[in-house]
C-alpha cells in the first residue's frame, strides 16, 4: 500500500492544483501534529507553497520519528534546504533545480497506487555525468548518462533539456526518450522481480535471462573476454544448461552483476 499523502494547506493558501488529490489536508499546527502521530511510521508530505513550508517548519521542532518525506513545490526566498534535509529523509524541491512533471500529471502520479514506479522529476547531477530521477515516493535514482545509449541515426541524449513526461513513464533528454520501465528494470531489483511476475509468459531459463541482460547492456556475443561467442550462443539457446562456474563468473563480471543475479533478468 502507498504511504499516506499529507497536503499542507495553511488557511488562505488552499491550492487548486491538488483539488482532486486524495490527500489528508492539514491547515494548522495542531492538525499537522496529530497527522504526525497517526502516520508517524512513514508519510509523504506535500508543501505546495512557501507558506506551507513555513507552517511545517514551525511545527517540527526536531526531526520527526519514522520515515518522513517532503515534496516542496514553490521556490522559497530564503535558504532552507539544509534544514529541510535535516528534518526529512527525502526532500524533492523545485529550489534544487528539479524539473517536475506538469502539475496535473504530478497530481495524477501521486494519486496512483504504483507511484513508486513512476517518476515525478529529474535533475542533472552536479558532475554532469549522471542525472538524478525522483520516483513518486520521492526516492532518488542516480542514472549515469552512459546508460542512455544512442542508436544509429538517432538523437543524441541532451541532459540540459531534461524532462519527465507521459505521467512519469518517459524520461526525455532533448529529442531522445527513455522508458521508465527500462530504467527501473535495470536499476531496481524489486521492480524487476515484480515486472517478471506480471509477464504472461517468460522464458525462465538461464539462456533467456542471459540474452535479455546481454542485450540490455548493449553487448554482443563476442564481447566476453575468456568466453567464446559460440559458447555464449549455446548457453542462450539452452544447449548448455549449467555452464561452468568460472564461465558464469566471467560472464557476470563483464555485465557488472553477480552470477546469481543473471537469473533475475
Amino acid at each position, binding site marked *: 500500500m502507498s504511504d499516506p499523502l499529507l497536503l499542507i494547506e495553511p488557511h488562505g493558501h488552499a491550492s487548486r492544483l491538488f483539488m482532486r488529490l486524495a490527500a489528508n489536508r492539514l491547515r494548522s499546527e495542531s492538525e499537522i501534529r496529530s497527522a504526525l502521530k497517526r502516520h508517524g511510521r512513514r508519510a509523504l508530505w506535500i508543501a505546495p507553497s512557501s507558506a506551507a513550508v513555513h507552517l511545517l517548519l514551525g511545527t517540527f521542532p526536531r526531526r520527526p520519528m519514522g520515515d518522513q518525506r517532503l515534496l516542496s513545490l514553490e521556490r522559497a526566498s530564503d535558504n532552507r534546504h539544509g534544514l529541510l534535509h535535516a528534518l526529512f529523509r527525502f526532500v524533492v524541491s523545485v529550489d534544487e533545480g528539479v524539473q517536475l512533471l506538469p502539475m496535473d500529471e504530478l497530481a*495524477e*502520479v501521486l494519486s*496512483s497506487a*504504483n*507511484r513508486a514506479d*513512476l517518476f515525478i522529476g529529474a535533475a542533472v547531477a552536479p558532475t554532469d555525468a549522471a542525472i538524478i530521477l525522483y520516483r513518486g515516493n520521492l526516492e532518488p535514482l542516480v542514472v549515469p548518462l552512459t*546508460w*542512455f*545509449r*544512442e*542508436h*544509429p*541515426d*538517432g*538523437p543524441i*541524449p541532451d541532459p540540459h533539456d531534461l524532462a519527465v513526461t*507521459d*505521467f*512519469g*513513464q*518517459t524520461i526525455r533528454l532533448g*529529442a*531522445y*526518450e*527513455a*522508458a521508465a*520501465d*527500462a*530504467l527501473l*528494470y535495470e536499476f531496481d531489483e524489486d521492480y524487476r522481480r515484480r*515486472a517478471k511476475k*506480471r*509477464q*504472461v509468459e517468460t522464458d525462465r531459463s538461464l539462456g533467456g535471462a542471459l*540474452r*535479455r541482460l546481454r*542485450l*540490455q547492456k*548493449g553487448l*554482443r556475443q563476442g564481447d566476453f573476454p575468456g568466453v567464446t561467442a559460440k559458447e555464449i550462443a549455446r548457453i542462450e539457446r539452452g544447449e548448455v544448461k549449467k555452464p561452468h562456474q568460472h564461465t558464469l563468473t566471467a560472464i557476470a563480471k563483464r555485465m557488472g552483476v553477480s552470477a546469481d543475479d543473471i537469473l533475475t533478468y
Partner: protein
Amino acid sequence: MPFGLTLPEPCANRGWKAKIRDRERLEPPHVTILYKTSAWRFALRTGTFLDKEPNPTEVPAEVVGAVRANLTLLRQEWDRMYPENRISTERKAKRKGKSNE
C-alpha cells in the same frame, strides 16, 4: 527520436499513445501503449500483450486495432532503432527453417 504511432482521433484526444522510445527493454521487442499512469507492452513478434497487469482488456479495441493494423510498420521501426535485436532477420530465419523441415 521515439516513434509514435498515430492512433484514431478519439483515443488520441483522450491521451492514449503508442510508442517505441529510444531506450526500451530490448527483449522481447515491443511497442508500449500508454495512458496516463498505465502502460501495456505489446509484443511485436507475436502481436499479443506481454503482461497480465495492467489488464489488457482496459485498452480500447480501436487502439489495439490500430497497433495490429500497423505491425509491419512497427516492426520496421523497431529494427531501425534496435539493429542489435532485429525482428525481421529472425522471422525470415524461422520461416526458412520451417520450409526446410
